[in-house]
């Protein structure tokens, strides 16, 4: 008797988990169907590739945000950090000048180093300052944003060397095997992220820290190191996103990356990661980022939403998508 009861409960739990992980994908399919009904141009390969390529920045940043949020933290500084890293990278490229691959490599290295440092600063202040990550990253958000405004003197930081720009351009606009490079980059980042989160002890420490800090501490999880590292990972993800972002427009402005932090957090939550920590779903996060971009795309392609109401309809779609997901879990 007890035996069978136990067995069914195990089975329902597994089913439940699967559905929970699947629900963002279901929402994605529903959106795609809705989009194709609204405008036949929606289902063209060109349009869909555009949308997924555009979602690459938020998707890559959101992979990092999955780590931070799963560990019970929050990073509000990613948008400003992105702008700062893009600005510094372009200034470095301009300083080095030459239109060859070594210049590009050095610029990329500078971008990654700076973004890792920014993440490290966030992590160290959160862990050793023992301040709420919300406050810390709100502070660094202001600092990073002001720094880029200062570097640009309020104007625009643009790549000066047009040959270098042409050399770099394919990283956003080029493709391999018919798939745009940014999509390949974000798939790679997501795969590595999933590997670290699911298959390493560090990944399990992250989730343990997010679900219960006290228990994690007594279980011997090196809390400080794990907590600092998740912010470094977040920083690196911002850096990688910028490597793909800069070749698109070749410039950074004080409005670059504005509100990206909110989009990244939204993507993570749509993807099924709990905002209070303890669960992390990389696949869901990636789908969440694509959903956000799809909703915006459908808004422009549709003819019946006034441009004044686009924001309202977008907000409503996201809430409805979340409600549908929630009802799927409750149904079990």
């Amino acid at each position, binding site marked *: 008797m007890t035996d069978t009861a136990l067995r069914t409960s195990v089975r329902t739990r597994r089913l439940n988990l699967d559905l929970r992980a699947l629900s963002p994908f279901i929402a994605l399919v529903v959106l795609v169907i809705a989009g194709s009904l609204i405008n036949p141009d929606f289902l063209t390969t060109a349009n869909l590739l555009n949308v997924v390529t555009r979602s690459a920045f938020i998707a890559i940043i959101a992979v990092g945000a999955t780590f931070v949020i799963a560990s019970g933290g929050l990073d509000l500084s990613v948008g400003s950090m992105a702008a700062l890293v893009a600005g510094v990278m372009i200034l470095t490229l301009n300083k080095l000048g030459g239109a060859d691959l070594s210049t590009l490599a050095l610029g990329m290295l500078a971008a990654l180093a700076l973004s890792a440092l920014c993440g490290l600063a966030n992590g160290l202040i959160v862990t050793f300052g023992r301040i709420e990550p919300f406050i810390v990253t709100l502070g660094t958000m202001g600092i990073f944003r002001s720094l880029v*405004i200062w570097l*640009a003197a*309020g104007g*625009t930081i643009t790549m000066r060397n047009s040959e270098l720009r042409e050399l770099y351009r394919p990283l956003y606009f080029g493709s391999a095997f018919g798939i745009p490079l940014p999509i390949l980059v974000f798939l790679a980042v997501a795969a590595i992220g999933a590997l670290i989160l699911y298959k390493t002890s560090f990944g399990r420490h992250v989730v343990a820290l997010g679900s219960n800090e006290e228990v994690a501490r007594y279980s011997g999880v090196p809390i400080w190191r794990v907590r600092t590292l998740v912010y470094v990972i977040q920083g690196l993800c911002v850096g990688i996103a910028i490597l793909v972002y800069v070749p698109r427009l070749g410039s950074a402005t*004080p409005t*670059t990356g504005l509100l990206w932090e909110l989009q990244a957090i939204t993507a993570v939550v749509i993807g099924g990661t709990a905002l209070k920590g303890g669960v992390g779903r990389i696949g869901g996060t990636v789908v969440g980022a694509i959903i956000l971009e799809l909703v915006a795309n459908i808004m422009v*392609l549709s003819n019946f939403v006034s*441009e*004044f109401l*686009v924001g309202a309809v977008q907000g409503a779609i996201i809430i409805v998508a979340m409600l549908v997901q929630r009802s799927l879990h409750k149904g079990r």
Partner: protein
Amino acid sequence: MRKMAWTFAAATLSAGLASGAFSQQKNVTIGVSIPAATHGWTGGVVYHAQEAAKQLEKTYPGLKVIVKTSPDGASQANALDDLTAQKIDALVVLPFNSDELTNPVREVKKRGTFITVVDRGLKDSSIQDIYVAGNNPEFGRVAGKFITDTLKEGNVVVFRGIPTVIDEERVSNFEKALQGSGVKVLDKQYANWNRDDAFRVMQDYLAKHPKIDAVWASDDDMALGVMEAIRQGKREDIKFVLGGAGMKDIVKRVMDGDKMLPANVSYPPGMIATAMQVTAAQFFTNAPMRGTYVLNAELITKDNAKNFYYPNSPF
């Protein structure tokens, strides 16, 4: 005889200059309160304000100009207090918004300070002695006229900025200028005066509309995002993109005869310098200065672009 007349004129002129110089011995302090450089256009405002301050102090000995930038409306109100504490004789202010700053500026006025308001008007226009502004309705009309004149007929897509009065005035007058012509607006969307957003919206426009003849990007930042999307989409149907505000990179391309960017419409951040000049003249010349100055939104083309090109400005 003729020579004598010249000498006489020269003598009067130099006497005039001397007496002018004499009256300049009075000390005047002008406070300038402007938004901090948070985007391209305000970056240009800060640049032109600082340049004008240097130049004015050189022109009028005894004049002191204090330029203060503020990141938002509330800190601008505080900045006004700080400026008043430094005993300014005149205030040149580009308010963040009309509602929040009307009362703080009125307080400054009550101390007998001369007030010059720039670009965004206050709720109560009796506060200002001088008002200098750009012309937003004209900005939209000039753009619309250029497009109807060049295209005669065809389809345009429109990029809006951030939902504000400025944006509404520009777009409604643009559409008014198109009325009765063969040019139709296919689509309008907000792209927040932002390059990335404009790139995104343009990609979607390209997917949605098989034939677009021209793009009214209405702003140079948005124009740059639009150009990149067109290049990626490899579309040949689009004849040109019309931006606005006179960003130096774009003005340069207009000057060089770029086919995709045949023109631009000015909305000069240098209007702050105009306001400072007029305010200084109020104290150092006898010419009447009080009044309202509306700067033209001018069509910038290949022929006149060099008058709008400021290579040192950040914008």
